[in-house]
């Protein structure tokens, strides 16, 4: 079997990759936030909480925002294709998702980077 690198395949592949990355993030997020139960001092002294303000983490945050936007907007596209007759305009819907995602990404990235 060979994969055809058309738009639908790329969208499908990116959906999987972003989904897996979001699950990895969710695991880390739950682990870090579970330290909230230990109280203020323990939480704010926890290594990974202190690392949150590091520049490298800001870069990872941008990656997370990108993954969430693509996964969510492409997910809406999938629902429109599956339930609302969007199958005939699925490529247009893909580019609409990418366009809307890019606009939101820029708006979301500005506050993240200004906290540097």
């Amino acid at each position, binding site marked *: 079997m060979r994969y055809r690198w058309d738009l639908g395949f790329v969208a499908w592949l990116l959906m999987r990759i972003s989904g897996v990355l979001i699950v990895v993030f969710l695991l880390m997020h739950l682990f870090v936030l579970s330290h909230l139960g230990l109280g203020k001092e323990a939480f704010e002294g926890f290594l990974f909480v202190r690392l949150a*303000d590091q520049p490298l983490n800001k870069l990872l945050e941008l990656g997370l925002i990108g993954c969430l936007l693509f996964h969510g907007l492409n997910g809406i596209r999938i629902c429109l294709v599956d339930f609302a007759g969007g199958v005939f305009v699925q490529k247009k819907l893909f580019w609409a998702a990418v366009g809307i995602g890019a606009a939101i990404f820029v708006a979301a990235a500005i506050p993240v980077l200004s906290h540097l």
Partner: protein
Amino acid sequence: MRADQGIQSGGAIHWLLQRVTGICLVVLIAVHTLIAHYTVPQGGLSYEWVASRMAYPLWKLFYLFFLLLCIYHGLNGIWMIAQDYVHRGGWRVAILGALLMLGLLMGSLGGLTIIPFGTKA
């Protein structure tokens, strides 16, 4: 019956639920992100900012529901991917078992953080 059809937990209902939970999560993540990370008071994210929300039972309920949907949608997604590449019944059982355990662990970790928050001195 083909070997890769040996273990599938329901198929179609999870296909539908993946879409339903997905749409819910778009809304929940938008609310969570805007409140938790984009309306943070001066000084950045802090323990107090989280605590101020978690003082309200409705926010706890919001986060428990959010947690439940995240776990289901995320692990169901991994399970769907696994079913595309893993065809042996034994391996599928092992993966499904591991994912269920992981879901239980994530639910406990999150639930035990959310529910008792603020009730201890």
